[in-house]
């Protein structure tokens, strides 16, 4: 299978960056003339900022846009907007909610708005895949590209959760910081271009409670690890015996819950590290799921698109 070539990256993280409407590309807002920006959900706004940073003003031809996909992963999807919309109806009656808020309650709102804004007419896919959403979105992009579903894509993840749910994620012993924001990678099929990195493989599995690799998947699993010199993977006791011990290992800070952005910290670390080939993994311990992508670094500029 062919590698998926990732050309640039854009991200915005709440807490670290914050964002204002001024960060949003002007053309984004003009694409929705009947909807004032205050009625557009924060996931869509963050996705718009991240996509703008990934593209850095590049103009795409109509031909490229026709077969250009948008693939977004998320853990909670539009839950923040769902709760706000519902609360309004509960407190003030269902006939007081603003119908302009309703489209924000579907998880594909952000991806669709990116497609409308940039006139990207290839498949527009939103995955609500929990803690492995970002890696699964990249895996979907790699497989979809090879399946001939599209030629180019924006692939990434987004996360924002209702504030009142955050206490459910923390335990008294280990208060958790929750990573919220959006990230997009631009995967381009154009030749002779500079690339950040390539994706050359993807594997994802929900394990049985014994955490063994099942027989049907074993050869595929074993074939993944050849040539790997670097592994970015959260530390979760259940999965440790599966992972190779003889590679350089990076584990994201366990006090930060990455949720749907799981793998982003490892990716950024990989891009700034010395190694050239590695595996980036995301783990959902409660869903016994491990997803990973195999990556090869090209030019290693982690700041690309993050301004």
């Amino acid at each position, binding site marked *: 299978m062919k590698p998926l070539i990732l050309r640039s990256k854009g991200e915005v993280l709440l807490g670290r960056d914050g964002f204002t409407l001024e960060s949003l590309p002007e053309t984004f807002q003009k694409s929705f003339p009947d909807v004032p920006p205050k009625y557009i959900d924060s996931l869509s706004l963050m996705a718009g900022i991240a996509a703008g940073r990934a593209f850095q003003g590049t103009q795409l031809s109509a031909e490229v846009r026709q077969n250009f996909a948008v693939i977004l992963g998320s853990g909670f999807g539009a839950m923040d907007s769902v709760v706000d919309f519902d609360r309004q109806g509960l407190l003030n009656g269902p*006939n007081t909610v603003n119908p302009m808020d309703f489209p924000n*309650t579907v998880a594909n709102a952000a991806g669709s708005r990116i497609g409308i804004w940039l006139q990207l007419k290839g498949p527009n896919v939103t995955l609500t895949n929990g803690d492995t959403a970002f890696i699964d979105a990249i895996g979907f992009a790699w497989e979809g590209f090879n399946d001939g579903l599209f030629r180019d894509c924006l692939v990434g993840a987004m996360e924002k959760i*209702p504030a009142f749910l955050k206490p459910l994620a923390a335990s008294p012993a280990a208060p958790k910081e929750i990573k919220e924001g959006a990230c997009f990678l631009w995967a381009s099929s154009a030749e002779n271009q500079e690339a950040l990195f390539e994706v050359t493989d993807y594997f994802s599995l929900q394990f049985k409670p014994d955490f063994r690799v099942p027989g049907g998947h074993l050869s595929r699993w074993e074939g993944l690890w050849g040539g790997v010199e670097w592994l970015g993977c959260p530390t979760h006791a259940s999965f440790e015996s599966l992972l190779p011990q003889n590679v350089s290992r990076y584990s994201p800070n366990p006090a930060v819950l990455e949720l749907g952005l799981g793998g982003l910290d490892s990716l950024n670390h990989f891009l700034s590290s010395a190694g050239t080939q590695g595996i980036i993994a995301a783990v959902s311990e409660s869903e016994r799921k491990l997803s990973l992508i195999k990556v090869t670094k090209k030019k290693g500029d982690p700041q690309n698109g993050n301004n």
Partner: protein
Amino acid sequence: MRKVGVTGLGVICPLGDELTVVWNAMIEGQSGVGTLQFLDPAPYRVKIGGEIKHRGRLDEFERENPGRYERAAALSILASQEALGNARLGAADLDSLRVGCFFGTTMGEIQLAERLSEARAKNHLETMAPGDFKKVQSSHIAYSVLDFLGAAGQTMVFSNACASGNYAIGWGFEKIRQGQLDLALCGGVDPFSRVAFTGFNRLLSLTPDKCRPFSGNRKGLVVSEGVGVLLLEDLERAQARGSHVYCQIGGYGLGMDAFHMTSPHPEGNGAYESILKAMAQAGLAPPDVDFISAHGTGTPANDKTESIAIKKMFGSDCRIPVNSIKSMIGHTMGAASAIEAVMTCLTLDRGILLPTINWETPDENCILDCVPNQSRPFQGKTALSNSFAFGGNTSCVVMMKQEGALEAADPSK
């Protein structure tokens, strides 16, 4: 590339909680729509919806697994069990196979989200449980199905609003076709949602009385709930074990209007693109298509633009039968495309076209034959199942009759 067959089907919707019950009700043109019980409809402009009324299996499941699964997961497990059952596969059979579990949903565990939202609005946060943090994420639906079956496998949950189920079917088809998986449970699910009902009410998209797809006097859609599951399997493997094959999946197409968040493209561009891609993958030309299961929501805009897309592909005098089972069960949101795919499989397998009920007057802007009001015999071999969504996401799946199907092996007949 391998061929992909459908060997198991499962469905729960307002017309019943078993495949045969739902199929027979649809042949008779029954309606599952009525005055809402899930919430007090008094403050709403529109007061009807589609609710799962035959709750025997669901109630029993929830009694046996108290508090373990939320509603979307429970429905998905039950429909998956039914699909595995009529494919004559048990959990033990999944052990040695490469299995996928792909679901689509618009709002996932929306009833839990609404309970959490209510707890917040009423300042009863103590009612929230730590486990709710995981359960409210849609990924938990696919996880729960495999967990309940005791299986390992690949999981994906697609949230492309009302087209979600077709995305799941397409992905499962692709992974089996390429030899990555041996079988895949592919479905769509959405329990009844206060948020969806309120939102569509406020958008004035709902019909006050009945859903009349393609009828000149159509007034809108009906919010509903349900689940549909298809068991996709490597065709050669299915035939080797003597399984009944309802039909083959021939291809799928995903498109994008890139036009508006809530209105379809007036020329049906995304719909046309997805039909075109699906037919191209299946190697079909327009004369090869015998039947179309429409998205057919019953809104003035959808039915008109879907008709434009169909006529663009098949000609302005297209006489291909195009039905909408949403006329009978309402719009089950993320489950709609999966339930429609289930019924399309049975249409090919059993040779009966299901009706579009409530059709009253022609509309020159719409397709010519919507199988109005009465089911009828059908001898076609190839069908399309369309599904479109908020945001302009469009999809189409091709299904083809399996020649020489093993009639006797179909336990649901």
